[in-house]
Each structure stands twice: as structure tokens, then as C-alpha cells.
């Protein structure tokens, strides 16, 4: 079970503003999903290696040669608030 306080804590970690209705609904839905998912936390998997990548890859090397990247103007084009050749953001202390 996941309660209201846990939902608010996780939403803060995820940088997600939730309405009152969403908090209630989320607590209910996440609890429902976790009921099913919990079956894997109960398995005894001592000694099993976790998989992080399915294809066995050796180190992938290439020569470290400089080349042009995305031009600054192009990178700034889709930005909501570009200014002085940079991405402008609100002050963290506003």
C-alpha cells in the first residue's frame, strides 16, 4: 500500500505538481499496481546477476576527433525563453 504522504513525497522527487484529486487517485492506482508487482520482491534471487544490458558489448571505441556539433542558434530555436545565446530560467530563489 502507498499512502497520501508517500505520493506527495514521490511527486516532489519527480518534480510533478499533483492536484488533490490526482493525489487520491494516484495513491489508489499505484497501490493496485504494486500489489501485482510485489510478487517479484518476494522471490528468492540470491546469487542471480542483474541484467543491465541484453547485448554483450565490448568497449566501443572511436578516435577522439573534434567535429562541429549542433550550432548554438539551432539548439536555441525550440527553447521557450532563449536570451543572450543561452536558455533563460527563472531564478531558483524567486
Amino acid at each position, binding site marked *: 500500500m502507498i499512502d497520501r504522504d508517500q505520493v506527495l513525497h514521490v511527486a516532489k522527487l519527480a518534480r510533478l505538481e499533483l492536484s488533490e484529486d490526482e493525489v487520491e487517485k494516484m495513491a489508489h492506482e499505484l497501490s493496485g499496481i504494486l500489489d501485482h508487482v510485489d510478487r517479484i520482491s518476494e522471490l528468492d534471487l540470491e546469487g542471480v546477476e542483474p541484467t543491465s544490458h541484453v547485448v554483450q*558489448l565490448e568497449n566501443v571505441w572511436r578516435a577522439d576527433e573534434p567535429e562541429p556539433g549542433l550550432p548554438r542558434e539551432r539548439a536555441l530555436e525550440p527553447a521557450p525563453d532563449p536570451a543572450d545565446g543561452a536558455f533563460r530560467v527563472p531564478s531558483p530563489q524567486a
Partner: protein
Amino acid sequence: MSELLELTAAEAVGRIEAGELSADEYFAAYAEAAAGDDLNAYLWRAEEPVGDGDGELRGVPVAIKDLFCTEGIETTAGSKILAGYRPPYDATAVAKLTEAGARVLGKTNMDEFAMGSSNENSAYGPVLNPWDRTRVPGGSSGGSAAAVAGRLAPWALGTDTGGSIRQPAALCGIVGLKPTYGAISRYGMVAFASSLDQCGPLTRDVTDAALLMRVLEGRDRHDTTSVGIEGGVAMPSRRDLRGLRFGVPRELASDAEGIEAGVRASFEATLKLIEELGGELDECELPSTRNGISAYYVIAPAEASANLARYDGVRYGLRENGDADLIGMYERTRARGFGAEVKRRIMLGTYALSSGYYEAYYGQAQKVRTLIARDFANAFEQFDFLVAPTSPSVAFELGSKTDDPWSMYMNDYCTVPMSLAGIPAISIPSGLAQPDGGGPELPVGFQIAGPAFSESKLLDAAYALEQAIEYEPPASPASRPGAAGSEEGP
């Protein structure tokens, strides 16, 4: 005009090559069909062909799932948070297609950020199934599948994280291939769950799937996890299945819960065909796949919660409440920009990765993944291929599963294990069946999985089976049950 829409893409390429068909005329026929899209399959359509069409694909149009970046063309991933976003570059898969002479016909609708199995999670409205417009096309590549099945595109590009190519292909009665992880570059594909995401074709038949795979596969310096397929992909030609051993995993077939009776009957009839074609059949076990959905719904949301952190209102996309402080801007932007399912998965993933829960969820899920990959490896010591239904049901009614996330997730039960193991799997139409409780006959998908990088063999076997199944979809969308103007609606 409509006769052109009945050609497979490979047939069109052949006619253009032989000088019997003009590439521009063929493109115009599809541009006109796409302009009349009444399935909500497209989010953007090309009015004019772009590119000279030089190359082996001869100017044939292709529909692109809106998850792929297309330079200067709006790319939304089905989300409001990316509304109006025009990427400054093309995804490698798109670039490879256009370099081979294909021309972009449109961008197709999808579940937001590829999270969904019914296309009802698109911020731009659900896609309708061309077989019956009261039903879902599957997801998340639902727009691509509906466009190909509804004769609005000759073929399309999709992506598959836990079944998002195979399941909509099954529900729309077309072919869908999820290649081996690493076969095709993911560069420029909006990331959902990076250890699972893979691009692949949705096509009318197996030959078209092979033709697209030949162009798409390959190592890409922009995606260090891409390795390509050694020796490339061969065009399929097999007429029988002699000498091939097919395993039927009990967990995904006879023991699987919730498989509709009609789907089961079609699956069993196809097993008989495999034997008639000379293939050997035997039951086998993949015991850990029983935990596949649980592991998947930890791993995929966990990776998504990290990948979707980039939507913060700074570099592209929506920004809300720019006058608040920085954190407030992040929180409000994401609250307004993301839909309910995306929020749910971000929350689930953040929870699973949070301090105190990491080992119990993510750590365990990654171990289950090891066991599932091991089950497949063991089975492939005995069998060339494993077969299972693609989807437990035929296309279901719009709105019928939206209230219960877990029942929606169970749609992926038969497709998720292959994704977790990184192996290739194809869905081909195996016939028509009624849903449980009655209703119109709808397409059923038959899934074949092979070892990593066995695409050529897999396509070859699927081709032989496809010829034997002799599946003939209704000639035109208008003649289908439930289609606009049809008198025999559901």
C-alpha cells in the same frame, strides 16, 4: 487510384523500377488517402513529396511514428509537452529511409511517449481501428498500424518497448517486427525505456518487413548500443518449414490466463499449419516469464522516470508558470504537459528507484530479467523458434480497459518477455476471430520469436507460414465492418 493502394510496398518498388508506375503518382495516391484520414492515424501529413526518391526504395512513401525526430517537422511523441517542437535533426532510422529513396508521408499518432496498449493515451485523441471504429488499434504504435491496415500508408515505422509494434500489428491485421535490441539505431527516437526501446517495421506482409529491415539495420556512431545485423538481412523465400523446430512455451500459450477462445483457436490452427509445412512442434517451458509483466512494469517506468526528467520547460517544449521560481516552473510545466498514464509511470518509476525500495523493486526486476533471458537461451538450445499468441485478445472496445491500469498492462503479457530478453519477434496475421462474448470477426496475430540477430531466418520462416495462412484482408477500408459508409456495421 485505389488499385495503387492495394499494392504492397515491394510491389510498388518493383513497378516503379520497371517504369510501369511513377513514384510521384504513387505518392500522390497516398497523400490523397492520408488527407482523408478518418481514423485519427496521422498527426501531420506531407502535402508534397520531399526528396528525389533516388535509391532502392524508389520514392515510395513511408509513415513515421511521431516518436522519431524529423528535422523541421513537428514531433510530439503524442504529448502536449512537445506540442510545436520542431527538432533540429533527423533520427538515424528516418535518415536511412530517406537516403534509400523513401519519402516521408506523415507522422503517426501514438500513445503519449509510447506508454500504452490502446492508443487511448495520446494527447491528440485515440486512433480508431480500421476494422471496427468502435475499437482500439492497439498501441503504442497504433497510428502506424491503423494507417497501414486502413490503406493510408504503404508501410510505417514504429517502436516497440514491450509490444508496441507487435500488439497493434496483431489488432490491425498486419505484420510487425520487433528486431533484436541493437539491430537498429535509436538515435533521434524519443527515449522511453532505453534498455528496451527498439525501432521496427509495420507492413502489409513479411516481404515488406524484410525490405525495410535491410535499410534500417546497422551500427550508428550516434548510438553506441547499436551493432547492426552481421551479414545484413536477406529477402525471404522459404516455402516450407522442414528441419525447423518450433517450441510452444506453456506459460505464454496453454497455461496463459485470459487468452480469448477465438485467439486460442486461431493459434492452434496455425500450429497445425506449421506441422503441415514440415516443421517440428513441441511444448516447452519459460518459467520466469510468469514474472515478466511485473518485472517490466518496474524496469520500464524506472527508466522512463529518468528519461522524462529532460522535459523541464528549459530547452524545448512547453513552459508553464515562467514567473515562479525554478522548481515551481518545473513542477507546473510537467503537471500541465504530461497526461495521466505518463504521470502514473513517472510516479511508479520514481518510487521504485527511491531510497529504501531500489533493491526490492528495480534490483529484483533486473534479476528476473536475467532469468527470463536464461529461459530463452535454454529453449533455443532445443528450438529454432518459439511461438505464442501476440495479444491475448482481438481489438477491444474503446474505453473498455481505461479504468484499470493493470488489466491494460496485461495486454503485453505475451510480448514483454521477448523485449526483456532483447530478442527479435514478429507478429503475422493468422486469421480472424470473434471476441469473447461475440461481435465482429477481427484479426488475430501469431508471434514467432528467434535468438538474437536471427532476423533473416525469422523472416524466412514467417514468410513460409504467411504463404500457407493465405490471409486476405478485405480489399478496401470502406468494405470493412464498421467502416464509414458500410451497411454491415457492428
